[in-house]
């Protein structure tokens, strides 16, 4: 009796362990595979699992969340849905794209009467954008990051009237990298995705620079 029970136990344990090993093996095999990829690979280039044969293919282990500014519609949900308060999504200023405009669509309210730093003229609800005179007629805009709540009002303004140098990004010093991003599941534009931790930003306009850094 005892022997029979022990044997059954052994059999069941063996089955469970085999199943576990098979699952793990399959998933490891899948993510470590290399073959013929048209940029759909498990490397630091795209964040997908699959086959990759590129010379720059880099196996990666961890992913982080990032939002694609080309998909973003500036709905403002990033400010409300993040598990962090204030949100880990903040506006990022790509200086390389900025036109340094005096009449800045990201800084000033559309119906503003005079161009000044007065609070009633500012589009940002928390005054997180700082305006500084550079030289005639250019002004530099800097984000005071701790003040930014990620509401995307300035992003919308800059995208509508300017170069689109203000872009929302998950700031990785604040993001706790939840297993499933709380903003991602509420994003109406499906703009959030898992990206390789070795290439954690999806900014427009400074991609080339990003790659140089590796």
């Amino acid at each position: 009796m005892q022997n029979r029970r022990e044997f059954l136990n052994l059999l069941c344990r063996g089955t469970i362990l085999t199943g576990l090993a098979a699952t793990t093996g399959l998933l490891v095999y899948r993510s470590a595979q290399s073959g013929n990829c048209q940029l759909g690979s498990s490397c630091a280039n795209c964040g997908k699992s699959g086959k990759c044969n590129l010379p720059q293919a880099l196996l990666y282990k961890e992913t982080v969340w990032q939002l694609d500014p080309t998909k973003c519609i500036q709905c403002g949900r990033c400010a409300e849905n993040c598990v962090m308060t204030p949100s880990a999504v903040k506006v990022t200023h790509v200086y390389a794209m900025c036109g340094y405009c005096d009449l800045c669509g990201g800084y000033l309210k559309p119906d503003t009467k005079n161009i000044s730093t007065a609070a009633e003229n500012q589009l940002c609800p928390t005054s997180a954008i700082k305006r500084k005179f550079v030289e005639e007629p250019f002004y530099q805009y800097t984000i005071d990051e701790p003040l930014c709540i990620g509401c995307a009002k300035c992003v919308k303004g800059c995208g509508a009237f300017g170069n689109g140098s203000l872009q929302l990004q998950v700031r990785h010093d604040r993001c706790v990298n939840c297993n499933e991003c709380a903003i991602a599941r509420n994003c109406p534009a499906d703009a959030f995705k898992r990206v390789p931790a070795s290439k954690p930003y999806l900014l427009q306009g400074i991609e080339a620079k990003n790659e140089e850094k590796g």
Partner: protein
Amino acid sequence: MKKSLALAILIFLFTIQFLNSYGIQRFPKPEFESGYVQPETLLPNPRAEVLAFMDIGVLIISLSVVSWLVIKKRSRNGVFWMSLFALAYFGFYREGCICAIGSIQNVTLALFDKSYAIPLSALVFFAAPLAYTAFFGRTFCAGVCPFGAIQDLVSFRPQKLGTRLNAVLGVIPYIYLGLAILYAATGTDFVICRYDPFVGIWRFNASFGMFIFGGLLLAVGIFIARPYCRFLCPYGVLLNWTSRFSRKHITITPAECIQCRLCENSCPYDAIDIPTNTRNPESKQTMGRKLIFITFLIPMLMLAGGWTGSQLHEPLAGVNAKVKLAKQILNPVTDKNQAETFEIEAFKSQGKQQAQVFAEASEVLHQFYIGGWILGGFIGLVFGGLIAGRIITRYQADYVPNKGNCFSCSRCVDYCPIKLPLETK
């Protein structure tokens, strides 16, 4: 004339609207004369990937140490301190992500969606505790899981629930597991992470509702020890079944049970099986009748459950983003005062075809139809198992921990009067 001018302006405005995409330099980059240096865009790096290996290392070492403490040292104190460490490291330092409970969903998604690359840490957090459980019992629950640790800390006045209530409430984790797998497999949602009651405590930050849920669980946990682990945890289901066939498992007594009953009330989780009357077993006839009843009952329940599940596939799929969007397109907002939803706005800006959205949504609905059959059948099986467990009489001579339900916390060990010479302190 006026009309054509208005039309021209309108067309002009529309073109502006369409130019509204990134990468178009409306204003060229200025050439500064004052020697102004353009500041660099600061991009803080995420947590280094090497640290993910540290997490894996800490997990494996913790599992090894706790297993050794439980099986070899039989030390409650050691397990307690290890659980405090887990609370500090996996709870407050790592802020709850990644955890073994949530990793079920990563593994499911990776199995069903080939394009999802599972992080190595998620895979290890899923597999390692199960592998250890297959050899040593649920030592993961005892001293590595931060969920268990925080609930263990507050269980001041554990009450006995009785076998019947325990068995009935014990069904909930199976249903939760089934739902979590269904939603992860269809790429809809990670429900386990969404309704994680303690992650708000690790981060000192959560929505009001989740704080209430977490607080309530801890408050209930004063009287009903480890309510999440026993009556909610979906990973516990997998650990439970693995642990039943484990090679080694914690024993209350190091030698032979002398039936002294000292350990009878020592388990806060009602996980000690109490000896049953083995002298007059029921007749072979009744046993046979019960067996026949069960073999007929379980398939019936599974069929009924599967059918119910398949009928519920539409409400189940209602939370899927693709299905939601298709519904919104089918029933557009007619009230002019009401702004169109962001989902519709995003759909329009992406220039996708309606037919494509509908095709995707019906694909998801089909997945939920099949998933509904499987989930319903599974729930039917679980209820069948519950009934079978209630009517089949088990025979047992000694006080032993229930290998499935026992968390290997080692409390009972201290109650046993028999000590091996090795153990005397």
